[in-house]
């Protein structure tokens, strides 16, 4: 891969990252990431702890809240290097989602209470937005909160809740005013997962993992001080999420990491010089370069004061198309070696996760606003159609 950001300062910064990773990344975690194996809680927690201690755990957070004070350019470099060195990508529910929301909209008490736990990993957050009936159409959500003395009582269910089995907190969108329509009347609340009435059903995915869950909220009490900012304004805060880290949604580091793995697999399969594979890999490398160049160009414009809005949806669309395409190429390279169940004795390294990753990563074009939704956003908000 050709790195685009290679000025002297960039290179020094890269060196700093590399040294840190070399000194701190657990070899077991590293091996899992390098081979696309599922990660355990400990893999994440251990790595988060290291980053936290170094002050690097929240690249995009302002310094006053515990961020490292990196520029957007440095964040892209850090992301690239971390992926290249097989560090596990930390789930973003605390660091990229509720953290920034609380910094912007939360009360001082909420910030004081939660931000440090998000940084350290002592608190593990999950996200309670989607519902069985409200996926792409989030505004149709039905989980209700009813006013009681000193707070609210929530009833309903949330789904696709990633890593809820590890979480002690969940931030939820709930309907607080059923009379007004759709987006209005929705509030955001912070719910202690150990509260009475919270239960969980793991959802087994087709790749055999249990990353996601359904969460049932049965008359769960939430005190007033755990409501985020104003009642009935939750939609606004949720929408603001989309603006966070939006220059990172191309997943460039992730794509480059995957490309590297596919290239290694091609070599392992004896097809490192197969013209068809070689051409396909070069094509993807250029595709990634185009997304990286677009990210940098939009970033540069934003830093110069140009308003960049929903344009970044294109990074999500193309980034996920590239990643899904690469998992398919990976599977084709692996051939039958991709087929044994990965827990079975007859797996063949390095191919044992190829088909599983293809299966698992089908989600990329579905979650966080499906690619159909993203194209609709581009058409509506950017193109004015």
């Amino acid at each position, binding site marked *: 891969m050709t790195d685009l950001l290679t000025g002297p300062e960039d290179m020094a910064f890269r060196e700093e990252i590399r040294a840190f990773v070399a000194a701190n990344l657990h070899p077991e975690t590293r091996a899992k990431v390098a081979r696309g194996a599922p990660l355990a809680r400990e893999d994440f927690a251990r790595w988060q702890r290291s980053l936290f201690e170094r002050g690097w755990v929240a690249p995009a957070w302002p310094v006053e809240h515990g961020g490292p004070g990196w520029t957007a350019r440095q964040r892209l470099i850090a992301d690239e290097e971390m992926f290249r060195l097989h560090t596990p990508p930390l789930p973003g529910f605390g660091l990229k989602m509720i953290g920034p929301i609380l910094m912007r909209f939360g009360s001082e008490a909420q910030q004081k209470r939660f931000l440090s736990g998000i940084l350290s990993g002592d608190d593990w957050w999950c996200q309670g937005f*989607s519902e069985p*009936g409200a*996926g*792409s*159409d989030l505004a*149709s959500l039905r989980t209700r909160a009813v006013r009681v003395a000193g707070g609210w009582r929530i009833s309903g269910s949330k*789904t*696709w809740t990633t890593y809820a089995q590890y979480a002690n907190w969940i931030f939820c969108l709930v309907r607080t005013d059923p009379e007004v329509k759709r987006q209005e009347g929705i509030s955001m609340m912070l719910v202690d997962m150990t509260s009475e009435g919270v239960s969980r059903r793991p*959802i*087994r*995915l*087709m*790749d*055999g993992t249990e990353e996601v869950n359904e969460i049932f909220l049965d008359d769960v009490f939430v005190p007033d001080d755990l409501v985020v900012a104003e009642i009935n304004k939750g939609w606004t805060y949720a929408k603001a999420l989309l603006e966070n880290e939006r220059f990172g949604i191309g997943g460039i580091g992730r794509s480059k990491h995957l490309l590297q793995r596919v290239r290694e697999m091609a070599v392992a399969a004896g097809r490192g010089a197969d013209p*068809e594979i070689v051409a396909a890999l070069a094509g993807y490398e250029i595709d990634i370069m185009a997304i990286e160049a677009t990210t940098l160009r939009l970033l540069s414009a934003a830093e110069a004061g140009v308003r960049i809005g929903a344009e970044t949806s294109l990074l999500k669309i193309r980034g996920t198309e590239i990643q*899904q395409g690469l998992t*398919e190429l990976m*599977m*084709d390279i*692996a*051939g*039958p*070696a*991709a*087929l*044994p*169940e*990965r827990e*079975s*004795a*007859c797996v*063949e390294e390095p191919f044992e996760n190829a*088909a*599983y990753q*293809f*299966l*698992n990563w*089908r*989600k990329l*074009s*579905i*979650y966080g606003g*499906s*690619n*159909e939704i993203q*194209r609709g956003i581009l058409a509506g908000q950017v193109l004015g159609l």
Partner: protein
Amino acid sequence: MIHFDLPSDVALLLRDTAERFVAENYALPQRAEMLAAAPEEAPRLWSAMAELGWLAAPLQEAVGGLGLTPVHIVPLLEALGAGLVLEPVVPAMRCAATLARALPENEAATALEPVLSGERIEVLAEGAEGAPITATRDGDRVMLLGTAPLVPGGAAAAAFWAVAELGGAPILIRVAAEAASVAAFRLLDGQAAARVCFDGASCAVSEAVPDCAGAALDFGTDMGLVGALAECSGLIDALYRATLDYVKLREQFGRPIGRFQAVQHRMADMFIAREEARSMLHLAAEALESEDAGFRARLVSAARVKIADNARRALRDAVQLHGGMGVTDELAVGHMVKRLLVLTQLGGSRGAHLKRFRDTA
């Protein structure tokens, strides 16, 4: 020369039986139970399937078969594919078809009798691409060396017919499971397979079955491919129907998602993928009757390329249109997707079939 006659009554009867069988025995919870068993356990419904005549169906009567041509069997196999059946019907058919051609009639009848009755499972075992199983003569015995890394249906097989090279020519050697080193495992779609190491296995020279110019093996290969393509076609159809039902029911933004034009166009493409797959399957099944091995290979490989391409496309779209539900293990869709993946990964790469298609022009 292709006719494209509609399915015969016999074919439809077989298919209907299979559909009923699947409905009774292969609901997802029942299937989950089967998957929980150790892979080397005998597949639960094997003898029931044999009793229904499915294994005997495509073989000529002289060797104990029912004498049905491939086009008669295809609808049955489509139903078994759509039904996510775990029993190794196609691998067993492939093996039996190969033996029926490689052995003299009376020997074939004897060899196949316990197989077609469902008493035991026997399948072919081949080396990996570029690493064939080799045979060498040692006095009046033939010694084997090599491993078959992935034998579908091999986990519970009583015996393997090792496909080996003896002095550059293909031979078939029957090796009882006890005489080989068998490691059973499941594939990601749940079907049981085995890695079989033949190092040290041997038989008397007189027991090795030579295959004149590989004609029996070639036919068996094409038969196995068409069987797998039938399963694919059945699965594409099942994915299409499941997705169509889903987009008619699932509402977002106040209406069924099937009312959105982008979804409609994608469903139209999935319909096209299904129709093309069916047509190519029919073509390949008819070609299987041809004694022109080149013509047969050419059409089977053409079908393989097209159906695998369409399967990939259909499975991607089926998952995407099911949204979050599509990536779970809770609907049949996820299981169909895995099965289709396995079917398109086995039996040779796209490039290899494209090459075989060209080379037989």
